[in-house]
């Protein structure tokens, strides 16, 4: 009973928050949907970076490929949103597998640089094959009706509900995976690849598997992002997208999934508010936030209650 409450409690909280956001920001559902899409993307990054310890600054490669795949599929084959999601996830997984075959042989700074290089290559390819991707003009498309019945509306109400449902499914699935033997192995690799090899784990192939699985999630986020805006342009491969995802994860706290959720909400809210208040200097606020978190709560906002508990315990 307690375990069920422990498992379902956070879900109830998430659903309540999603419903509250729907009613609190009826004219800003487009933005809220963007936050939900970003949460899925950062969850994928958390699996790679926070759980398995793979350093990357090229996660946008997986997101962008999923976005383009879904848009091209919608244009050429079928506009069904769910099929588009599946295609986006498949494309994200495929590009993660192919690039992972050589990325996972590197580590540290080399890996960071190579991950950026992969994104740049894909961005160039998307630009070069403009007949398919729309090049610098982007590729606009119209997502079909959900389940062949529910049309996406101008105010983004259905888009928001759809994105929240996808997020809940992804979040639940990731919680299962992280608690599984596969997840424990990924944590073990992050802690000590040498020890994992010494217990017989094929570390390289396991890292490729983690990266491929995360690629599917990032690709799915890309597809969802494309469907929610009905447009894909070259900015899906922006370095900024990868870098901001890392910052969101650091703000929230790595390796525990919830950190990805909290970090994304905080980052994007602060970004939105700060950019509205001062369109030229909003980056100062983001920088200050990151500095504050890194220096005051190195474990991220998720580590805040534990830190407060320690401090108050120490004061007694």
């Amino acid at each position, binding site marked *: 009973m307690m375990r069920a409450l422990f498992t379902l409690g956070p879900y109830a909280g998430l659903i309540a928050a999603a419903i509250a956001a729907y009613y609190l920001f009826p004219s800003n559902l487009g933005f809220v949907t963007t936050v939900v899409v970003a949460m899925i993307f950062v969850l994928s990054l958390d699996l790679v970076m926070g759980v398995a310890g793979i350093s990357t600054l090229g996660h946008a490669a997986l997101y962008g490929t999923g976005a383009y795949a879904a848009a091209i599929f919608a244009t050429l084959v079928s506009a069904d949103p769910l099929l588009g999601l599946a295609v986006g996830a498949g494309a994200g997984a495929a590009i993660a597998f192919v690039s992972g075959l050589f990325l996972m042989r590197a580590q540290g700074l080399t890996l960071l640089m190579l991950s950026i290089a992969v994104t740049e290559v894909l961005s160039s390819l998307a630009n070069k094959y403009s007949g398919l991707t729309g090049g610098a003009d982007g590729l606009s498309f119209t997502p079909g009706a959900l389940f062949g019945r529910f049309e996406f509306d101008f105010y983004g109400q259905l888009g928001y509900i759809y994105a929240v449902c996808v997020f809940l499914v992804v979040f639940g699935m990731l919680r299962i995976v992280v608690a599984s033997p596969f997840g424990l192995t990924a944590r073990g690799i992050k802690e000590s690849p040498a020890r994992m090899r010494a*217990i017989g784990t094929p570390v390289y192939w396991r890292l490729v598997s983690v990266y491929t699985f995360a690629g599917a999630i990032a690709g799915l986020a890309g597809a969802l992002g494309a469907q929610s805006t009905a447009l894909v342009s070259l900015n899906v491969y922006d370095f900024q997208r990868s870098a901001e995802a890392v910052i969101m994860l650091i703000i929230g706290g790595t390796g525990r999934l919830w950190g990805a959720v909290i970090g994304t909400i905080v980052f994007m809210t602060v970004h939105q508010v700060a950019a509205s208040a001062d369109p030229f200097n909003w980056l100062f606020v983001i920088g200050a936030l990151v500095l504050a978190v890194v220096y005051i709560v190195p474990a991220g906002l998720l580590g805040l209650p534990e830190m407060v508990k320690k401090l108050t315990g120490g004061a007694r």
Partner: protein
Amino acid sequence: MKGLQVRNLNKSFGGLVVARDITLDLAPGDRKALIGPNGAGKSTFTNLITGILAPTSGEIRLDGRDIGRLSEAQRVKAGIAKTFQITTLFRSLTVRENLRLPLLERRGLTARMIGRADADPALEAEIEALLAQFKLSAFGDAKVDRLAYGQQRLVEMAMTLALRPRILILDEPAAGVPSSESPLISDAIAALPKDLSVLIIEHDMNLVFKVAAKIIVLVAGAILTEGSPQEISADARVRDLYLGAHHD
């Protein structure tokens, strides 16, 4: 032929020869120690056996099967396991989680993405048995970096044993362990399964003479001599080169 057979093993890095024509047998139940001064090539030799390093030439066979081309992970699956000279554990995981990983790996379950890692009662029972065997039952839920160093060495040994190896290489199991905790290590080695072949690399001569039936002396990458503890302690060359005047 049962056990580990190493024949004419050589390893060099450019002009630097670190293993020179090493031939060694480890039969089931053997308790052998590999000793030698710092830089003799002991850890290099274990790295060659476990597949961390590839030999320049020579043969490594396990039960007659050539394992020289197998990866490190494949050699573990074949039955060769080692502990590290410097304790290498999953420091932010609990003792139970540290033991769970090799058990999951041995059972081929680590690729499973559905179902909790701690859901298998048989596997959990095996963890409890290992905790009891190494007197760690009280520390199952503690993170390993909270344990005393001697206990961390025991966790490492328990993890290795969880793989049910046939060849166990203990690379300086007592290194860094305070003398007060040293009996924990020697007792644990004494309690290892009788049919397990053990090769122990160690500088603590008291421990070596206590647990090893045969001692191999390695100097400058080559075997100088091999014999019983009595023969080795009586060997003038070994005394000069390694044991020195301290050992009586």
